[in-house]
């Protein structure tokens, strides 16, 4: 993004341009509601001028449409325009399509080659994706055995560059990440003539997809289809080079913003949902129908089709920039949960708009995918998949969790389009953090996942637990495909990031953190920010240097584990105690109490410690944590009864919460309670065995 801005021709306006890309219409129309009026008109005009086509465009341009957004002007710096005419064969699970891609060279330099993602080629036994998934695990398919239905492919039948002729023969598979010659998820096209800075180039691609049974939230299951990552997609020129990674088991996507015009021809009985807005639907004579979708300021396009979807589309959310139609496609057996889905979708829209900024699109499509498919819980621009089951008790909020999370990606990925290959934590992790905040607000801090039959579970603790198990393996700031294992990737990228940012709230204050997140979104929406952009935004808003924290929490693998080691209390004049005389009931006895606190691991962080005395008095101490341990000593007419580190419970990255406190008296009630369950289970098991066995 920075490099592309240089191409605009004015380094001076770089920062304001980035900060207001696409913001001008929002500001003009909705500043009052959004509270986002921090743009400079001059910068806006610079941006619009920079987006104008170069003189050698040959008549090519990127449309400045606004059909799919609640804005009269483009919101992003549009680099690509995809026009795809695709035909879906539901029986064969294939897609045949013609794609016209218009690319605007805003890189500031001539481009003589273009890499394209061919994601569907990941689903082949020797691909990097499957190799990694087999050895390190993935969240859906185990690959114990290879089955033909798992096979997917994306084949470019022909590729023509307008003005340069058919260059199909120039295509060459490349493996920039691991050199796996069998991996065909990236293909590079070398042009016969470079594309000048500021110029446009148009590719005409005919391609054929064989979609696999659902893997990585793409493919078919029974008569359901999720068309995700299904078309050749050009890489991103970023930091002075093409950024076009192979498809890895733990990576997702990275692409430029632009305009999508997609025609989908499907059997007439199919119910279809897709990114963007539907602009036309025509029934064909061959029992097919063609649906046309248009998307503005998005960087991907996904669709789904099933003959059995039940649709609710009368829900409209009145957003800060205009109405948002909520289109919900449910499985018939889940129809009773449609209101739950709509409620959490609307609640998420409200929360995100009030916390981070406006949702500018006219639609949001929520798809309840086929049961037992690997299609649940996925985000695409203006299009998300949920995940539920026909039996879903009211107090179990898993559908809410998934819907909220995937909707959150409309912000952290959809609009703030970070590099998911290299900085997965910036979409998944930041999104997990905001997920905790939003679900806390909607469903309660301790009950945002489970609130049933007396049992509770809150999302923030679940995020912490997912991190604790893999605490020492990987840092947050590393490429998504370089994690120790899938579990480590998941625990660190999602859980650790969320926990680290929640802990940061305790350091800078919750209000400050909220402001920082709002500022980050407003500044970097419709751009490709880096981790430094994010961390610096927090420092700027907080007005303090937080490197000490980021170096350990984001860039390092340090572990935080504090412990109250022990408490010792005895009378100051203990030596005067005589047989038969006790200090127990003597209110004038002065006690000396010692409280030892230890930093067990290498993460150094200042902490508060609260010591409670048996007369009800509480004392708060602050310890910088620099040494490995410290000791607090008191002389009072009361005994120290307990000590607790982080009494406000703001630290979410402590590996062991149990030893953060210590009481001098043992409290056995919890064990009695849990022991009762164990005794019950043991007795019940014995009786069940005896019932059937003898």
């Amino acid at each position: 993004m920075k490099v592309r801005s240089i191409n605009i021709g004015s380094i001076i306006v770089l920062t304001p341009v980035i900060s207001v890309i696409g913001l001008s219409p929002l500001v003009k129309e909705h500043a009052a509601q959004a509270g986002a009026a921090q743009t400079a008109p001059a910068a806006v005009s610079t941006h619009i001028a920079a987006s104008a086509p170069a003189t050698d465009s040959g008549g090519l341009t990127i449309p400045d449409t606004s059909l799919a957004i609640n804005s009269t002007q483009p919101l992003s710096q549009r680099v690509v325009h995809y026009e795809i005419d695709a035909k879906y064969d539901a029986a064969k699970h294939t897609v045949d399509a013609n794609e016209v891609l218009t690319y605007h060279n805003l890189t500031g330099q001539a481009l003589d080659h273009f890499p394209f993602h061919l994601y569907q080629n990941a689903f082949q036994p020797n691909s990097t994706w499957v190799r990694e998934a087999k050895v390190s695990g993935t969240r859906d398919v185990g690959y114990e055995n290879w089955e033909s239905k798992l096979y997917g492919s994306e084949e470019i039948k022909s590729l023509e560059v307008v003005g340069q002729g058919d260059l199909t023969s120039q295509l060459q598979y490349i493996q920039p990440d691991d050199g796996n010659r069998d991996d065909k998820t990236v293909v590079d096209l070398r042009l016969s003539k470079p594309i000048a800075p500021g110029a446009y180039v148009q590719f005409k691609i005919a391609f054929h997809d064989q979609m696999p049974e659902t893997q990585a939230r793409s493919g078919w299951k029974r008569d359901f289809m999720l068309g995700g990552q299904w078309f050749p997609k050009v890489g991103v020129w970023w930091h002075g080079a093409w950024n076009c990674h192979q498809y890895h088991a733990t990576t997702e996507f990275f692409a430029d913003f632009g305009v999508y015009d997609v025609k989908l021809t499907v059997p007439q009985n199919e119910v279809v949902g897709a990114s963007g807005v539907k602009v036309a639907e025509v029934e064909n004579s061959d029992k097919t129908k063609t649906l046309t979708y248009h998307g503005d300021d998005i960087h991907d396009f996904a669709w789904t089709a099933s003959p059995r979807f039940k649709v609710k589309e009368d829900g409209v959310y009145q957003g800060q920039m205009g109405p948002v139609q909520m289109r919900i496609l449910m499985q018939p057996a889940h129809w009773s949960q449609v209101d739950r889905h709509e409620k959490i979708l609307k609640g998420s829209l409200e929360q995100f708009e009030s916390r981070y900024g406006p949702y500018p699109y006219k639609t949001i499509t929520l798809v309840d995918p086929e049961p037992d498919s690997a299609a649940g819980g996925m985000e695409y621009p203006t299009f998300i998949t949920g995940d539920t089951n026909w039996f879903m008790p009211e107090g179990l909020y898993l559908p809410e969790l998934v819907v909220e999370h995937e909707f959150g990606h409309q912000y952290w990925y959809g609009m703030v389009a970070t590099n998911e290959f290299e900085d997965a934590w910036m979409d998944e992790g930041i999104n997990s953090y905001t997920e905790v905040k939003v679900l806390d607000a909607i469903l309660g801090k301790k009950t945002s996942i489970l609130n049933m039959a007396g049992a509770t579970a809150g999302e923030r603790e679940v995020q912490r637990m997912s991190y604790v198990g893999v605490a020492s393996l990987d840092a947050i700031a590393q490429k998504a495909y370089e994690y120790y294992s899938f579990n480590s990737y998941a625990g660190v990228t999602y859980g650790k990031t969320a926990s680290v940012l929640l802990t940061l709230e305790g350091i800078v204050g919750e209000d400050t953190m909220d402001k920082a997140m709002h500022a980050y979104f407003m500044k970097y929406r419709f751009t490709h920010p880096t981790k430094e952009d994010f961390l610096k935004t927090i420092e700027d808003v907080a007005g303090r240097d937080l490197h000490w924290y980021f170096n350990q929490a984001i860039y390092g693998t340090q572990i935080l584990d504090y412990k109250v080691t022990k408490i010792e209390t005895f009378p100051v004049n203990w030596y005067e105690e005589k047989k038969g005389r006790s200090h127990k009931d003597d209110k004038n006895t002065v006690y000396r109490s010692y409280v030892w606190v230890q930093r067990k691991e290498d993460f150094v962080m200042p902490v508060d410690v609260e010591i409670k005395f048996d007369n009800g008095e509480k004392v708060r101490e602050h310890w910088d944590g620099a040494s490995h341990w410290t000791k607090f000593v008191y002389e009072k007419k009361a005994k120290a009864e307990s000590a607790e580190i982080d009494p406000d419970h703001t630290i979410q990255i402590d590996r062991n919460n149990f030893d953060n406190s210590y009481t001098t008296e043992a409290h056995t009630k919890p064990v009695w309670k849990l022991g009762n369950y164990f005794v019950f289970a043991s007795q019940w098991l014995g009786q069940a065995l005896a019932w059937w066995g003898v």
Partner: protein
Amino acid sequence: MVEQQGLLGSGWSRVARNKRYIVWFYILNLALAWFGAGAFNTQAHSILDHSLQSKSLVHGFDVPVLIEMFSRPEFGPTGASHGPVLHFALLFFVLTVLFLPGVLQGYASTYRLPREDFFRACGRNLWRFVRLLFVAGIVMGVVAGVLFAIEGFLVKKAGESTNELLSFEVGVVCLVVIFLKMTTLRIWFDLAQADVVLSDRKAVRKSIGIGFRHMWRSLGRLLGSYVITTMVAAVILVLGIWIWMKLIPAASVGGAIFIAQLILLLLLIPRFWQRGIAVSYYLEHMVEPIAIQPFVPGPVVAPVESAPAPVSTPVIPGTPPDTQGE
């Protein structure tokens, strides 16, 4: 239906007359379970007793806190705490095998079975029960294996349907069939057990055959009775857990222990009721008639008036017969 009510009533009266067996089995199970939970309690005490974090387990049930406790290295491997639960449950099963003959003997008695008779029945039938258990294990294992394999296949096939509920519905139907089939087998071996104990039959093979014939002959009555008693157990369990969840405050550990133990005590009753039914059925239909020699009166001979029979000289042991005077 009348006969079935009679069977249920008769079986129940035997249970009611011998409530002490249920109480003893309950105490035995509780004692074993207490030992089984000992390892868990020890491990949990070391983590929870002095931590304020454990409060969230008292005033509610914070699942992540529980998960964190299990994941702590100092808690030790979960197998170390969970294993004894299984082991002591198995021990209860073994002791049930040991003491069941005495229970059956007691149910068949019209009087309170003395302790020595109870244990005599246990000892006398132990080896027979082990053999019965072995055969029952093979039969029930094979049948259950086949049925569950069929169920798995059908559910998998149903899962290919676009009707999401179909696999669940097929699964439920299959489980009902499996339950009925396994209950039938349970009836068979319950009758065989009753026959072994009450007929004092050494040939277990023969009891199994007799049990099978009677099970088949009176399947409707017996199965109906067993299903009804099983439904009673299901109601006890569901109602008990509902009360536990809804009426017992989260912080009331004593209340939780009370309701849990009440559920378990009541859950023992239906199974003992089934055994009472088996004994009643045995006594009504399976007792083999005792072969008694019919009394055949001899010919009546009229008394003959004659000289009185000579009185023999008594023989005094140690005294030689007196023959010299004749």
